[in-house]
């Protein structure tokens, strides 16, 4: 008799269900596995056999044949071990076939029979739930993320021994479904960023720019001399990012799970903040591999992708960021299919204004105009066109840096991240309300249709915007981006209609012409 269980193969950030079939027949003792297997799946043979023996189960001396179907999907990863072992147990009569038929098994086996966690559990569980699989069995490591899917019963096993004993019970006890919202709330309160905006001295103008950018998830470019606090400010951003919704939480955890970046089954409760060094390879950013794993760009989905020293990045990488930033997803094509990864990120970039970094302080900067132009032209116009907010980070006065407080020191205390976050949350709530059931979440994601619907303004304001469009030679995209930013500024001010002030402030955040093409 052939015994059957279900496993899953990871395909990008999705998964396909795989049927495990085991047949134990007569003949010379052997243990064969077929079904387009990668070498790590082939190695399952040794792991399963030894794990079973060490759990006190001896295979009969006959031909054991294992087939993983459909045979046209290449199977990678170590998550098939548990499914294969379970199918063997069914074949040996230790587990009833009826009980194990519609069950997904995910886990890697240790030689002593213990079940270990693997990457990509959430996508597998989600795929199973979609196919109406009734139950899934996962290791202890993966149980948290598996519980995010509410349409399936999740069972946790730590060893083969526990697996058998659980399946011999009349009714298998499942884990409690996860209360995502509670989990997020708990983490949100706890989130204590090492970097707080109260550590950033002065820089009121940049802080405001960061606040607006975060409130609407707009792309941000910080410019300034070396050592003035660009990086510090960027590192403070996680502390003011708005709370995740449960929907977003599942989306993000799924990508991180598939990328193996959530340390075995932790739920991602905070918006990701991914900082990249400029020596990163294109495939590590965009995602790659034969069976593509999501790159840094997708791992930052729903959060922030931070590129320090922006012009140092190879031009190829900067340019290839353009399309994903615009569309919110990246498609990676391989011979055996296309893989789509979501990339709704807020891009934060930091750069110097010239090669030496001190322009326009001519006492220190010796760069010629030509050199400055060449440096700035490393970032193409189309890329700069996608930056919604451009802000200057200034040199700090020595009296502001002074650590010892004097008697009549009238320095203002710096605002805490917590307070900024409160304002961001207000704007976020307004947006949540606005985009209910529309598939988008932030002002930055609005399409031209939405802009018409949500960006109402009076005639005078409209006139100012059109005037700026003509005078500053804006592109249509820049025009729309300004509208989006002004929507966010008005949201921060809790205004129904976009006001003149919001529009003007939004225009002033635009990347200045001088950077796009001088002379």
């Amino acid at each position: 008799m052939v015994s059957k269980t279900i496993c899953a193969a990871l395909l990008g950030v999705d998964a396909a269900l795989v049927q495990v079939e085991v047949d134990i027949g007569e003949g010379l003792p052997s243990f064969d596995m077929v079904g387009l297997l990668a070498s790590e799946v082939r190695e399952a043979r040794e792991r399963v056999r030894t794990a079973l023996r060490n759990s006190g189960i001896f295979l009969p001396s006959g031909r054991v044949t294992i087939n993983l179907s459909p045979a046209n999907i290449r199977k990678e990863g170590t998550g098939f071990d548990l499914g294969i072992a379970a199918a063997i147990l069914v074949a040996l009569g230790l587990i009833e076939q009826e009980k194990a038929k519609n069950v997904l098994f995910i886990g890697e086996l240790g030689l002593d029979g213990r079940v270990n966690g693997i990457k990509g559990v959430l996508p597998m569980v989600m795929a199973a739930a979609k196919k109406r699989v009734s139950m899934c069995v996962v290791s202890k490591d993966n149980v948290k993320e598996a519980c995010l899917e509410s349409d399936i019963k999740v069972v946790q096993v730590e060893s083969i021994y526990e697996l058998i004993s659980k399946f011999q019970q009349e009714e298998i006890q499942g884990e409690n479904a996860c209360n995502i919202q509670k989990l997020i709330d708990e983490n949100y309160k706890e989130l204590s960023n090492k970097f707080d905006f109260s550590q950033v001295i002065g820089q009121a103008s940049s802080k405001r720019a960061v606040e607006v950018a975060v409130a609407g998830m707009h792309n941000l470019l910080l410019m300034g001399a070396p050592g003035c606090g660009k990086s510090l400010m960027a590192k403070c951003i996680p502390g003011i990012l708005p709370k995740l919704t449960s929907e977003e939480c599942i989306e993000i955890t799924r990508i991180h799970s598939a990328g193996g970046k959530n340390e075995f089954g932790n739920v991602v409760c905070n918006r990701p903040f991914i900082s990249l060094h400029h020596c990163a390879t294109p495939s590590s950013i965009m995602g790659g591999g034969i069976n593509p794993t999501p790159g840094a760009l997708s791992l930052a989905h729903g959060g922030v992708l931070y590129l320090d020293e922006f012009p140092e990045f190879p031009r190829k990488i900067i340019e290839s960021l353009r399309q994903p930033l615009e569309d919110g997803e990246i498609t990676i094509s391989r011979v055996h299919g296309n893989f789509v990864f979501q990339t709704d990120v807020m891009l934060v970039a930091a750069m110097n204004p010239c090669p030496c970094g001190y322009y326009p302080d001519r006492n220190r900067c010796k760069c010629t105009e030509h050199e400055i132009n060449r440096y700035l032209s490393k970032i193409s116009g189309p890329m700069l066109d996608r930056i919604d907010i451009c802000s200057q980070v200034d040199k700090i006065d020595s009296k502001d840096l002074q650590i010892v407080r004097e008697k009549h020191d009238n320095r203002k205390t710096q605002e805490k991240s917590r307070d900024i976050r409160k304002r961001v949350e207000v704007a976020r709530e307004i947006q949540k309300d606005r985009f209910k059931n529309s598939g988008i979440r932030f002002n930055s994601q609005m399409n031209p249709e939405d802009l018409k619907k949500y960006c109402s303004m009076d005639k005078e304001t409209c006139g100012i915007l059109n005037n700026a469009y003509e005078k500053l030679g804006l592109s249509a995209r820049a025009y729309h981006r300004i509208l989006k930013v002004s929507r966010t500024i008005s949201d921060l001010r809790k205004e129904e209609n976009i006001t003149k002030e919001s529009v003007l402030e939004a225009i002033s955040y635009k990347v200045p012409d001088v950077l796009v093409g001088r002379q």
Partner: protein
Amino acid sequence: MEEWMYWLWLCGLKGMWQGKMEKLFQYFHSPEEIFFATSKILQTTGIKYEDIEIIIDKEKGKKELEKNIRILKKEKIKFYYYGQENYPEKLMNINKPPYTLFVKGELPKKEKLCAIVGARACSEYGKAKAMEVAVNLAQAGIGTISGMARGIDSYGHYGSIESAGKTYAVLGCGVDICYPGENKNLYEKIAGNGGIISEYKPGTKPQGWQFPMRNRIISGLSDCVAVIEAKHKSGSLITATCALEQGKDVFALPGRTTDKLSTGCNELIRDGAGMIFDGREIIASLKGVTLDESAGIENVMTENIPEEQKRVYDFLDTTPKSLQNIVDEMESDVSKIRVILMELQLENLVFEVTNGYYVKNKNKKNKR
């Protein structure tokens, strides 16, 4: 062969720079004589043997000459030589006058010219001032002459071109070569609005030592020299020195004593150079009128702008001020200041030089 052809032949020879020609002309009266001189006679002048061989090789020389004539025709380059009728008179009297001149466009005629020179890596202040001075001079009918280098030179040329004034550039390479390359646009505009001048034959590549040499031509062709921004011991000061030797007035734009870029200028003023405010001093000096009579300069109308905007506008000047700086000074909200600055920018009253740094835009007409 006509006389000009002998000249073109001579300057077309390999390695025939100013110094060698000077040596030759101590013994000969015209290039024609050199052309027909035997090697024995040439030896008496004391030039090197290799150079004599080059002069003697008539076939190669003629080939080169034909090639150069072709280039002159094709590129529409005019050729002048020392002692010719229409060779600029101003250059006849300077130290080491150039023997040959190649011109794309035209040579300056009787009009008054002011040389505008200064640093390549200039500040926003220098940039704005170079433009302003050139514009004011152009309105008074005074042209400019400079070296088409990056920075101040370029802005001086731009200022003249924008106000439809004459402007001339003296290059340190052949006139058919645009150096620096990014000034291609400017190069063509100067050729149309005045002329590009060089003592070197077409095709001569730019070399470091040729640039200080051309400064004597810049000062020679001008009636006075305005140094806009120069560091201590800057190359621009060479032009000023040449001008003094040639007996011309030197003007300098004062700057703060702490600004390195103004040190050279301030030193010039200390040593007796005229001081530039906006170019009227130069007009007054060249035209021999008083300051008040010199052309009136349009001032930006600031009466109509609202009080808040005016405060910000008045705080700004030609030195870039950062947004943070303005916010601190006005003791106001960042968003508010951003709004005001944007309004001023849309009015063309303020200009954002680089991200987050603002200056006053004095020439409202000039969109930079």
